[in-house]
């Protein structure tokens, strides 16, 4: 059995030394070069910090970023990816949780990194690439790893106003990657087209499928997603065979009419996740590319990206509600009622996940971890952790899992997970906002902020743009005399929804 993902990089470097692993619009890295880079970066990090340390990585959308991530792992450490384009405040929040003694940064983000509240060692990635590897030192550090060791910490929205860092082990990652590869039948001939930001959970497929199975990943420039003809040209030029995209990303070219002028000729498989796909746009893909394997995935970051999948067998129509299907290999799903009793077949209960892909909890946050990661209430005999997703589900007559939304106020917007409570906490920090309520208009994919107070729409947008990731900026802000209230004094959200 493998100890860590390092075993996979070593094996790939031997087997596919001269084959391209990662490519972007300007450069490419073979598996051999990738391996060498991780060792060069890892050696320097191992000189700086002990094994088991968190390493913050702020690096752009290019082939060197995965090498920086795995360089941290070579040093026996784990990485916390940070999107340098995010506002300073957000990045500082992440740093205050992860408390990394060292940050690896590419030159393009050096200036931004220097402005952050970071008192650890700032290391410029490009300066390490040509340094020699110290095999002995790396061996010592890697020997600290077991498959339970953390591999990365990825941050996601938290309802109290601070992001939560989900810690994932080598074992969880490898469990998921092997299971998804089996369903998508990923092999060395596949070329993946990366859409997800590299710091985001959805990118783990694009990073680890190549390292595990000798496939290649092409990192698509962000701007091309606004230009479907350019995007499809790229997919065809790079002969891309597999896409693991957010639903938002899959819908974009269909929305913008991309299929009127062309299509991705080499595509064989498309898997999507992050939110419920619109049948209308999935049908556009199916009509243009009837032979592609379409896979609907479901799952939270806490269960290592995705825990169930459904292979779309038939063409969808407007009424189709796609199941989220069945668990991946090595995943266990159970449905529980509010009182922790098992949900009877056919009824709706909370989706809970068990098995080795359940992650290690929220970094430095024992309280939030204890709430969501609990002993399986149906098992009184031995320790069995499950993760309570907060999502509702039921089984249909074919034994397939159906998704029924959230139990709380978490929403999925443009592929990202957002706690409406975090939007409100942020808005309350703006001078001139007395009270507010954030809501999501799902049909139009618009984030609304209803508020009372003197603040102008411009004040609010500017504040959000300066402090929050772009996907968390309310597109519509509505100023009210007072927020409608229910008899118990709580905000009447239904009344607000009628103002969409």
């Amino acid at each position: 059995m493998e100890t860590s993902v390092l075993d996979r990089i070593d094996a790939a470097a031997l087997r596919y030394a001269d084959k391209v692993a990662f490519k972007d619009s300007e450069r490419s890295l073979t598996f051999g070069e990738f391996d060498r880079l991780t060792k060069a970066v890892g050696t320097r990090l191992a000189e700086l910090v002990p094994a088991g340390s968190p390493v913050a990585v702020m690096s752009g959308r290019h082939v060197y970023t995965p090498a920086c991530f795995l360089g941290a792992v070579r040093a026996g450490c784990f990485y916390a990816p940070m999107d340098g384009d995010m506002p300073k405040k957000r990045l500082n929040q992440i740093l205050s949780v992860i408390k990394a003694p060292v940050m690896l940064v590419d030159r393009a983000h050096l200036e931004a990194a220097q402005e952050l509240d970071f008192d650890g060692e700032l290391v410029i990635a490009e300066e390490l690439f040509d340094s020699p590897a110290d095999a002995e030192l790396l061996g010592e550090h890697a020997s600290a790893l077991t498959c339970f060791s953390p591999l990365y910490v990825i941050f996601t929205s938290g309802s109290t106003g601070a992001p939560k860092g989900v810690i994932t082990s080598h074992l969880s990652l490898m469990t998921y990657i092997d299971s998804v590869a089996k369903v998508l039948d990923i092999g060395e001939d596949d070329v993946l087209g990366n859409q997800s930001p590299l710091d985001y959970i959805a990118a783990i497929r694009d990073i680890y499928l190549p390292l595990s199975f000798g496939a290649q990943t092409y990192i698509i420039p962000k701007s091309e997603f606004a230009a479907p003809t350019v995007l499809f040209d790229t997919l065809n030029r790079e002969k891309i065979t597999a896409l693991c995209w957010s639903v938002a990303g899959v819908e974009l070219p269909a929305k913008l009419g991309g299929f009127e002028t062309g299509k991705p000729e080499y595509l064989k498989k498309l898997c999507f996740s992050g939110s419920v796909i619109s049948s209308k746009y999935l049908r556009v893909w199916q009509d243009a590319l009837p032979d592609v394997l379409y896979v609907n995935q479901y799952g939270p970051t806490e269960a290592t990206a995705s825990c169930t999948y459904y292979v779309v067998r038939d063409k969808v129509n407007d009424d189709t509600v796609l199941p989220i299907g069945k668990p991946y290999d090595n995943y266990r799903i159970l449905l529980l009622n509010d009182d922790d009793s098992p949900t009877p077949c056919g009824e709706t209960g909370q989706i809970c996940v068990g098995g080795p892909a359940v992650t290690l909890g929220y970094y430095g946050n024992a309280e939030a971890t204890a709430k969501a990661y609990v002993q399986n209430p149906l098992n009184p005999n031995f320790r069995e952790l499950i993760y309570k997703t907060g999502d509702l589900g039921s089984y249909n007559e074919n034994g397939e899992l159906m998704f029924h939304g959230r139990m709380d106020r978490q929403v999925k917007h443009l592929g990202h997970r957002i706690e409406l409570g975090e939007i409100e906490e942020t808005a309350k920090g703006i001078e001139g906002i007395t009270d507010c309520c954030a809501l999501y208009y799902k049909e139009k994919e618009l984030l609304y902020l209803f508020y009372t107070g003197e603040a102008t729409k411009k004040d609010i947008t500017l504040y959000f743009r300066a402090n929050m990731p772009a996907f968390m900026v309310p597109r519509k802000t509505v100023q009210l005399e007072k927020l409608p209230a229910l008899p118990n004094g709580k905000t009447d959200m239904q009344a607000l929804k009628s103002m969409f």
Partner: protein
Amino acid sequence: MEELMQILEELRPDVDFENETSLIDGGVLDSFDVVALVGELNDAFDIEIKPNHLIPANFNSAKAIMALVEELQDE
């Protein structure tokens, strides 16, 4: 032009549309901004922006967007 500036200002009040000339290439507008913008432009100017118009050169500045709108209005 005034109507266009109003739409842009409404969409992204944080961007200096008067002077910015690399809205797409510079990553100022992301793909979701573009989707929202295309919808607004189609409605406001009664035009139909097609996928082959969606190239960076047509959206890099307010001036370029205006030129595209005018070209489509003439059709």
